[in-house]
């Protein structure tokens, strides 16, 4: 990479045109600069990186959605299992009740609670 050095006095357009003693008298000035294609490539790389970041976040969301779907599926299975057990339980209880139709509900009705309704 080639470069050249110039005295500050040579740069008459600089804001620091005024020469001051004991200050550096030279500055680095690159001879070659980035061209338009390089700019495009750099911008493209930055855009790609940003896109990749966005995609990563989006993928994370999808991953969570898949997790939710799996959890829902497990809930659904457990609910199905619970329903099946509840039905079996009800069937067995009903069969037992059928054997004992003379069961007396101890708290059904208080015999003396039949107060007459008074209409106005």
């Amino acid at each position, binding site marked *: 990479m080639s470069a050249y050095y110039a005295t500050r006095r040579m740069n008459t357009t600089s804001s620091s045109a005024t020469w001051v003693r004991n200050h550096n008298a030279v500055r680095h000035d690159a001879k070659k600069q980035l061209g338009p294609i390089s700019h495009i490539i750099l911008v493209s790389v930055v855009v790609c990186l940003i896109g990749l970041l966005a995609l990563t976040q*989006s993928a994370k*969301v*999808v991953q*969570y*959605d*898949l997790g939710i*779907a799996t959890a829902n599926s497990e809930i659904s299975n457990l*609910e*199905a*299992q619970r*329903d*099946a057990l*509840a*039905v079996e339980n*009800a*069937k067995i*209880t*009903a069969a037992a*009740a*059928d054997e004992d*139709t*003379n*069961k*007396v*509900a*101890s*708290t*059904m*009705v208080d*015999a*003396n609670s*039949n*107060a*007459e*309704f008074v*209409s106005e």
Partner: protein
Amino acid sequence: MVMYNRKMRYFWLRLLIAGMVLVFVTTLFFIQIVEHDKHVRDANAMRVKQYELLAKRGEVYFMDGKDNVSPAILNERTWTVFVDPNFIIKNAGSNGVQEKEKVQEKLIELLGDKIITTWDKVWADEKNMYVEIAKNVDYETVSKIKEANLRGVGRKETSRRVYPNGTLGAQLLGFTNAEGVGSGVEGALNDRLSGKKGMLKTVTDVNEIPLSVGDENIEIPAQDGESIVLTIDENIQRKVEKILKKAVDNHKGGIGSASALVMEPTTGKVWAMANYPTYDPGKYWVEKDPNVYVNRVTETPYEPASVCKPFTYAIALNEGKLNPDSTYLNTGSTKVGDRTIGNAYGTATRNGVITFRKALVYSLNTGSIEVLRKMGDGQNITKGARVTLYNYLHDSFGLGQKTGIELYEATGKIISPDDKSGEGNAVRYANMTFGQGMNLTMLQVAAGFSSIINGGNYYTPTVIAGKYENKKLVKAEQKAPVRKTISAGTSVEMRKMLREVRAENGGANDLKGYRVGVKTGTAETINPKTGRYWSGKTNASALGFGGANSDDALPSYVIMVRLDGETLLWGSLDAIPVFTEISNYMLQYLRIEPK
């Protein structure tokens, strides 16, 4: 020359790039602007899916005592198992896909007799991608199929209604098809039970798993149906059904069908509503006779006969036209218009001067006709007497009109005295005093009768005790009576008279220390060949109350029994034993202390 060539090359290169850019821009313009809507539609068609979110149908519960509930109708998840013959045949032996014979063998082992097709049919068409193998497969079996990991075998979730008590309360609970058309509670309360479907519109992945990345996702949650608790007490219902079955079986073909209703007269709550023969609503499709689906308590009006005499007496008492201890001359028959109406067989020994109180005890038709005459000029069945009877029966006691219960019910019919065809004449009204000449449902009669013996308050009968939410019973508000039918004093007198009837009609079989009242009825039916009343087949009924342990206390229950005869049945012989057995059970069940 070199400079010229370089310039030309730059020119062509720029032109080429410009051309390419132009092509890109033009294409993008077409895709993004001109054909924008089409591409959005295509994209959405591929990735956006719309699902119907099914509402869970509400369950139905019986009461089990005062505060407990027990399940009457539950939901059970089931699965339809299907195979993809095209996939299995094409991929057999690769990627874990088993040979069709092995798939078949495993499914036979797991599903057994649940398989609804033949394997020849399954494999007949290699292009076929969906063949149902079994329906209503339970959770346990479908889990085993899932574990077997049979590729090319799928399962689709469905749901079915389960009646854990089998036939208990079959006509009351009923059933419904996919369109919500059905019978019983299932049909009549379908709107409350079915809830509202929801909707999910969402972006999905290739496996159709919903993703939340779309900006137009819509989710309207389903609203589950209401779980309803019925006033029907499981224990009473079960006992009543057993008693009806025993009555029908013991009669050896004489009773075609039997029905019974037990209700609380002071609230209108129905505790039992039973019919026999019955069926299993969980397998309703196997029943060959659709008549068995009908709840005869609410849907089949009939002529209840003498169980309606208490209405006639109560009306006359309430109007101040009858002194029960006054007398009339009973000659065994009486002439009304061009007809002679007689008493029932076996009552000739009661001929002579008799009190109205005794006329009710012996169920004399001449007595109730005489009561109607008293409502007019004392000699004839006047228009005024007919209007009074009609107004009470129809408007106050609610006979011949729907009661408002939360079930399917028939209207029945009472002919108005103003009927233009002249059908509301004296002869019809004479018949109506003893429950013929009008078509009524058991529920109408029992609800009206409840008001006669409960102090004169008419309650709309109900089968809804409340809702079942978060595993708790949320009781419905107790409704006040909708109208006054008779005075409290008339009600007291009617209870007394009906207890006197009971004393002569099976009262000896009551548990000691209780006050039970009853009235029986034997109705002639219409001969289908002649269109006239005949005694070849009769319907027997019994309508009564019990549970009070003092004269002042209100009865705890009302029972109505109806037996439709294939032969000659009698209320006092055939219906009374059924009434007695139910009544004695109720006295014990309600734990009423005797006095």
